[in-house]
């Protein structure tokens, strides 16, 4: 579904990604694991076209996106949930939820979204940033479920959240996967990732250094602990 080959990204003078290669197949949950600064977030932003300069190849359903503007990437059917969540303070929960335009048929219905995220319905009129961190994260995920985007890029959805909320978000991502969405997940929380993902790519210094199918994760544990420093 998504095929990234030889991806190089620069911020001004600093060269962040050095030929990143990975792929995501339809229906999979794939994680990018790595230390802070390894280039995971930059990888997602590069796919979305939110970086100043990138080279290589990003193919989504066969179409080349390496030179596409962010709105073209969004329109192609990729939903983005940024690390800082990107909830708009000037918009209430409903306005935040309905902000992203529908890009393809087959998005989740609002009724289903409210079943999956009941808190959002109760707080429909609250300003987006008055929600708790966990609720904001749910809103950030919920609003890309109804647009018809089938590949979701989630950047550290568990960051800074209490364990019980992390668990809830895990259940939601599992449900999203069950409904046929494909997810590319950036995570530091390795235990969280291991419960959801089909495959893991280990990113170091802007390159993929290993690919681990989830069932081989246990065997690679020592190696991973060394690489990720956890």
């Amino acid at each position, binding site marked *: 579904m998504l095929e990234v080959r030889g991806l190089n990204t620069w911020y001004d003078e600093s060269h962040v990604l050095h030929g990143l290669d990975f792929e995501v197949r339809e229906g999979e949950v794939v994680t990018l694991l790595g230390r802070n600064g390894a280039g995971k977030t930059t990888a997602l932003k590069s796919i*979305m*076209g*939110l970086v100043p300069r990138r080279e290589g190849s990003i193919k989504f359903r066969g179409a080349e996106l390496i030179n596409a*503007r*962010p*709105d073209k*990437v*969004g*329109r192609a059917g990729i939903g*983005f949930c*940024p690390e800082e969540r*990107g909830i*708009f*303070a*000037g*918009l209430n929960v409903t*306005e935040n939820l*309905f*902000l*992203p*335009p529908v*890009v393809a048929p087959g998005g989740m219905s609002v009724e289903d979204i409210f079943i999956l995220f009941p808190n959002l319905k109760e707080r429909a009129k609250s300003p987006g940033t008055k929600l708790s961190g966990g609720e904001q994260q749910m809103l950030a995920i919920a609003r*890309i479920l109804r*647009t018809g985007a089938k590949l979701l890029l989630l950047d550290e959805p568990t960051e800074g959240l209490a364990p019980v909320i992390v668990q809830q978000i895990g259940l939601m991502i599992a449900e999203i996967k069950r409904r046929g969405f494909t997810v590319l997940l950036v995570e530091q929380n390795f235990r969280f990732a291991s419960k959801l993902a089909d495959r893991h790519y280990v990113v170091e210094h802007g390159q993929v250094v290993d690919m681990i199918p989830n069932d081989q994760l246990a065997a690679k544990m020592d190696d991973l602990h060394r690489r990720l420093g956890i």
Partner: protein
Amino acid sequence: MVMILGKPAPLLFGQLLLGIINGSFYAMLSMGLAIIFGLLRIINFAHGAMFMIGAFVTWGLFNYLGLGFWWALILSPLIVGAAGFVLERTVIQRIYKLDILYGLLLTFGLAQIMGGVMENYFGSSGVSYDTPDLLSGVLNLGFMYMPVYRGFVVFAAAIICFATWFAIEKTKLGALLRAATENPALVQAFGVNVPRLIALTFAGGVGLAALAGVLAAPLYSVNPGMGDDLINTVFAVVVIGGMGSIGGAILTGFGLGIIEGFTDVFYPPGSAVVVFVVMAAVLLARPAGLFGKA
């Protein structure tokens, strides 16, 4: 004669009306400035010139094409808005990555060009535009006489202000605009053509200025400097109200018009500076403006 606070009532009400009318223009112009600043981060110094062009287009529609006031009310904002769209796409969009001062310089230059061109063709004294027949005459309100057209301006301005506020604060398009003001990159990643949204916003903002220009044409002399006189006060209004709040721009615009009107009754020499005195006081107490977010 009825006296209020030691002043003749008709004088007081007359000044109140004048204040509300001036306030109408302050509100309509500062709204457009606030909308443009919100999304483009540009202080549009050409806003007064756009207002002036709106008035000249009104005059031109009648004198060259025989299209009267009611046509101008629709056509002039569209024409000026379209010109604004082209201006944004060709010139203004080039400076977004630069310091905010460049936007100020660029739009100041554009204002000078527009003023100069119009002065070249029409002279500095300008031209006059008749009040539309339907709105001529005077209304006896009992406590004062009010020219019908002036009442119409206040009525029209109130509708325009409410409609703009509603469009920005309560509609889907407005939500998009507010979101793009906060985080344009993310809104674009959702699939919205943000560069086009920005151009349309600029077009909408200057279209509002032109609409105010249409309303002003029968009221003031249509001349190349008509925007300059107004825009200084409008900038003060925006500073007092705080950038980025549409409701704030409206309330501050009308409020300051009224304050100015009353100052003219009680202390005439102060009427020209009262807005700036208020501005200084507000800046000392609330640097982000009355309705601004710090």
